[in-house]
């Protein structure tokens, strides 16, 4: 005699090829949609106004004049707004996302620059702002080009003036020395900026943050094709099992275990080829993490998938049939993943949403995935994931028992 668990596994294996195909199609469609969204986002970002903080020694009159000039006359005033502030305030503002970056000017920056000494100023960003980094680099390149061209024009003008006054032969070496001095000063300016990344969250780099977010979305959506198996209107099988002494808890546990194992298989069947494809298409793509980090990272899939499988069963129990179950699952996953910062950094959201995100199942699941990547992360999110797994399972069990009793009694 076979157990309910073994038949559930066999059942899933029978439809596994179908589920795999649906999953691949689903993710291909999502990839197209996301790339479209990213493209639209990048285009809108190009026209966005960045707010940049200026901290450090800004007392110099020349510098003040330069800031005013930048804000009033330069073309950059349409894309950048400079705000003077204390460094601690700037750091807090950067974490909250109210500024895109801040510049930290060292002591006597202008005076030292005038003497030809270069002490780098620090450009601090939240890492999610690649566009503003590029924009700054372009701005500096443009500035340097202007200085070089103007210097050359000045040098040639000076040489022509000396020629006109018949002192060219005598003073040619002075012009050359002057030009070389210009060039040296200008070239040193390219070393005058250093970019530091604070990281978006828990010290993670942008790419790591989005790896966690996208992985969570991927794991959550993996359960969608299983709606055809678990969302049923006819609960006669569960009724018969109850009458034969198999409790509702035991039935649901067997279903959860088989679903969890099938999700693990499906994740492996999709994730491994995806990584292999990424490595083939771009050999540097996987080098963002070491082999050890990749292994640790995938290890944390297990608790997250345990929670996801309980969540899926709960949603399918509520859905009651394939269509409503699929719709409910899809929109619940998208909403929770959105609020949990899978598409945008959570720090871009208002404080209330950030607070809510910390308590959402997707929030703790994302933090669990981040354990392997974030510096100094603790294992507390794992407890949250376990609590949610138990809570979803219990909720699914309550809905199941309510449905069975209502079906057998309410329609008597």
């Amino acid at each position, binding site marked *: *005699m*076979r*157990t*309910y668990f073994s*038949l559930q596994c*066999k*059942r899933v294996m*029978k*439809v596994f090829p179908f589920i795999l195909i649906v999953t691949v199609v689903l993710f291909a469609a999502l990839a197209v949609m996301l790339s479209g969204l990213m493209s639209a986002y990048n285009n809108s970002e190009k026209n966005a106004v960045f707010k940049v903080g200026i901290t450090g020694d800004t007392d110099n009159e020349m510098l003040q004049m330069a800031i005013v000039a930048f804000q009033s006359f330069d073309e950059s005033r349409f894309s950048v707004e400079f705000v003077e502030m204390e460094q601690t305030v700037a750091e807090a503002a950067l974490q909250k996302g109210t500024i895109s970056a801040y510049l930290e000017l060292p002591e006597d920056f202008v005076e030292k620059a005038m003497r030809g000494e270069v002490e780098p100023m620090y450009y601090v960003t939240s890492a999610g702002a690649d566009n503003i980094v590029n924009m700054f680099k372009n701005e500096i390149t443009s500035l340097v080009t202007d200085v070089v061209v103007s210097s050359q024009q000045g040098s040639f003008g000076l040489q022509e003036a000396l020629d006109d006054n018949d002192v060219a032969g005598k003073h040619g070496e002075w012009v050359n020395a002057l030009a070389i001095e210009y060039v040296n000063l200008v070239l040193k300016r390219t070393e005058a900026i250093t970019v530091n990344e604070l990281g978006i969250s828990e010290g993670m780099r942008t790419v790591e943050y989005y790896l966690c977010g996208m992985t969570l979305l991927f794991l959550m959506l993996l359960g969608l094709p299983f709606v055809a*198996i678990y969302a049923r209107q*006819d*609960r*006669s*099988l569960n*009724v*018969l*099992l*109850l*009458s*034969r*002494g198999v409790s509702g808890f035991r039935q649901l546990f067997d279903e959860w275990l088989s679903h969890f194992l099938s999700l693990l298989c499906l994740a492996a069947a999709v994730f491994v080829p995806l990584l292999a494809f990424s490595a083939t298409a771009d050999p540097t793509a996987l080098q963002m993490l070491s082999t050890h980090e990749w292994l640790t990272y995938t290890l944390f899939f297990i608790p997250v998938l345990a929670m996801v499988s309980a969540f899926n069963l709960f949603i399918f129990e509520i859905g009651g049939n394939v269509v409503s179950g699929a719709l409910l699952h899809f929109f619940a996953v998208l909403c929770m993943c959105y609020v949990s910062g899978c598409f945008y950094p959570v720090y871009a959201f208002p404080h209330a949403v950030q607070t809510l995100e910390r308590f959402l199942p997707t929030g703790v699941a994302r933090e669990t995935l981040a354990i392997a990547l974030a510096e100094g992360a603790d294992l507390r999110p794992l407890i949250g994931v376990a609590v949610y797994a138990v809570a979803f399972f219990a909720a699914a069990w309550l809905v199941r028992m309510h449905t*069975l*009793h209502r079906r*057998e*009694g*309410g*329609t*008597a």
Partner: protein
Amino acid sequence: MKIEIRNIRKNYGKQPVLKDVSFTVEGGKCVGILGGNGCGKSTLLSILAGIQSADGGAFLYEDKDLFTYPRQRAQLVGYVPQGTPLIEELTAKDNLSLWCSKEKMEKELQNGVFKLLGLDEFLKVPVSKMSGGMKKRLSIGCSIAHDPPILLLDEAMAALDISCKQKIFDYIGAHKRRGGIVLLVTHDVMELELCDEWYILKNGMVHPFDYTGDTAELVRSF
């Protein structure tokens, strides 16, 4: 062998569905439970099958209350629900394997109840490709695979063609001859003729009814 249903009560919230249901069934008898829609017939069977608990009363088998012996009840009672308790993606053989051992299945297929129900004709067919009659015969096969002496059939033969019904009638006849007990909830006149005793469930109480084949009289008594 006999069973006694004694003073069973059940409320849904404040609404009483079964007030004081009592009757006795001797071995080898088939009892028809009749009544209008929503009168509590399915509730009564689901209580006897252990799916719901009663608010009071007893289900006695050989003077032992099966409500307090759930394991024995699971062995003694075979419940056939209204729907199809089958796993759609699997074959008839896979479905039967959930309810009986391989040896038992082979024995029953050769010369037992599975043969009687004609399950050997579509053993390797997935449930999703079966007709309604095949599914119902398989459902009954699954429900009685453990050879229960007490059978509870909840509109088990609804919407079946005559040849399918005949196979199930043959099985019920054989079950009665072996001394088994059948409780049958039905609205079908053809099935009523299979029964030896009839009870009408009305206002939460059961009333004995002597069915003579007069359908009009039956309808009046609802």
